[in-house]
């Protein structure tokens, strides 16, 4: 499958005073049409920053993002190039992502209207999209405050869909919703990806949802992707100690004795990343070498990629025990 979004060695830096903080440090990613890539990691690991840099809200310090054959540049004052309008984003907070003073229909119709479609046609489209995401057609005449968080997120999804995007970056789209709407919104996204053959990068810290909906998973730690591969493979045999620790932190309702593994300490300050492997101060399997040598991002025999010295390029993933 030919990837539609390709991220090559992307770094994003924030300036704090006169200090540079590398929130994303050399990331490679790709997602194809009709594919869902789950991007997981702890809070503060840089996954939202990565998402914003992919769509062009943030400027990458190094590396590049290619979307459908063209390099993404930061959105500026000028109008965004029509080509990149097919690369859309859904935001975490459905209260901030809709304009409280404008009618739902007008907001959904914005995209098509900017694309040159007449107002009545655009509003007609908005109404049918609202229906598609499970809201009544007459919602076009209403304002955002008349809807719940889950409904607003559906509206935000409808707004992104209105211009038939090829790729959607969803930045924690369900974490601000109550539990009952979380599953519904996640299912909606899955169905839409199938129906419209879009690519979806689903950024989340909710591993159980990511496991359920993603085709592939990328695990991020402190600005770097530590492991990426097919969802089931990663779940069955995590090849990176961080992935294993992260997954053991999921509570299991079936009563299986799966003792959550505590990671010692917190995510370090990205302004002063640890030397060598960024995970070594918290890693239960760390060796002396880990503090000095940065592990390569190697491909394993089953096609997944991992950055850990315990794994050898080209061989099957070794089972980690701790």
């Amino acid at each position, binding site marked *: 499958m030919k990837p539609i979004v390709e991220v090559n060695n992307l770094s994003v830096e924030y300036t704090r005073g006169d200090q540079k903080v590398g929130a994303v440090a050399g990331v490679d990613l790709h997602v194809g049409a009709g594919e869902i890539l789950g991007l997981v990691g702890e809070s503060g690991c840089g996954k939202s920053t990565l998402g914003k840099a992919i769509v062009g809200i943030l400027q990458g310090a190094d590396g590049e993002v290619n979307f459908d054959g063209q390099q993404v540049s930061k959105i500026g004052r000028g109008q965004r190039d*029509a080509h990149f309008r097919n690369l859309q984003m859904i935001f975490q907070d459905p209260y901030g992502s809709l304009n409280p003073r404008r009618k739902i229909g007008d907001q959904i119709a914005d995209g098509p209207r900017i694309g040159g479609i007449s107002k009545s046609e655009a509003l007609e489209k908005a109404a049918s999209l609202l229906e598609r995401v499970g809201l009544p057609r007459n919602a076009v005449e209403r304002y955002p405050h008349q809807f719940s968080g889950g409904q607003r997120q559906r509206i935000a999804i409808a*707004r992104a869909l209105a*211009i038939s995007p090829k790729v959607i970056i969803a930045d924690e789209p369900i974490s601000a919703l109550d539990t009952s709407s979380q599953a519904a919104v996640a299912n909606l996204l899955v169905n839409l990806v199938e129906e419209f053959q879009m690519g979806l990068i689903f950024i989340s810290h909710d591993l159980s949802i990511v496991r359920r909906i993603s085709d592939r998973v990328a695990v991020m730690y402190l600005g770097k992707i530590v492991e990426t591969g097919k969802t089931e493979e990663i779940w069955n045999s995590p090849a990176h100690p961080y992935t294993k620790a992260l997954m053991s932190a999921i509570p299991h309702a079936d009563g299986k004795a799966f003792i959550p593994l505590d990671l010692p300490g917190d995510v370090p300050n990205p302004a002063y990343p640890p030397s060598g492997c960024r995970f070594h101060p918290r890693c239960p399997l760390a060796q002396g070498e880990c503090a000095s040598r940065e592990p390569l991002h190697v491909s394993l025999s089953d096609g997944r990629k991992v950055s850990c010295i315990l794994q050898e390029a080209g061989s099957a993933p070794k089972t980690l025990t701790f």
Partner: protein
Amino acid sequence: MASRFGNSNSIWRQPLAVVGIIIILFWVFAAIFAPLISPYDPLSQDSDKFLMPGSLHWMGTDELNRDIFSRVIYGARISLPYSILLVVLSAFLGSIIGGISGYFGGRVDAIIMRLTDMFFAFPAIVLAMAVAAALGPEIRNAVIAITIVSWPVYARLVRGLILNAKQNDYVTASSLLGSSSLRTLVVDLRPNLAGPVFVLASLEVGNALLLLSGLSFLGLGAQPPAAEWGSMVSMGAVNFDRWWVGLFPGLAILSAVLAFNFIGDALRDALDPRTAKALRD
């Protein structure tokens, strides 16, 4: 939220606001029906000069034998519409400048904000005097002069509102959809301005009226023989021993400015959710 301007009932629960509204309604009524209310023509000089207030002339007469009561009533026809016009003009000008400043930021913002600082550093009346004197003494020029000195408050307010509003994800979403700068400003950001600008404008009507009367007092605004409160007060200042000449137009200015400020304060409270809640509880 009951309406765009907050709970529309809450303003009626504030006694000062009600007083303000009654006073303004009185002046509006006076302006509209001036010919019916005033016993004399405001320009006729058929009487004697400097008559004390009495049964024939309720507020006395001035140095040119004119009936002061009639002139105060007719004065509302100048002061009210012109102060509202002034506020509309400066709010419009200031909002555009402030919007550009807040939205574009960077160097444009720095230049515009230093410019507003310069205006704030001068007393408004001094600057307005200079501009009005340069343009020539005429009421239209006084309006231009006051607009020129009044826009910076609106520019500051709107800049802040835009800076705040453009942080919202819906603004980012809109530019991801391909909105141009102009469209983002007009469609996404402008609706955030209406309430606060309206409140500031209502608070500024009194100021505008005071500046206009001030310029007229100094001879740079309304020209004789027009019945204008500020220029009438200046006649009172010249004839200081005839207290009625300056007192009644002065009271007219006082009442109108006070009333506009009462209404502005009440609107501000009604629109600010925190104070509004305190009032309802």
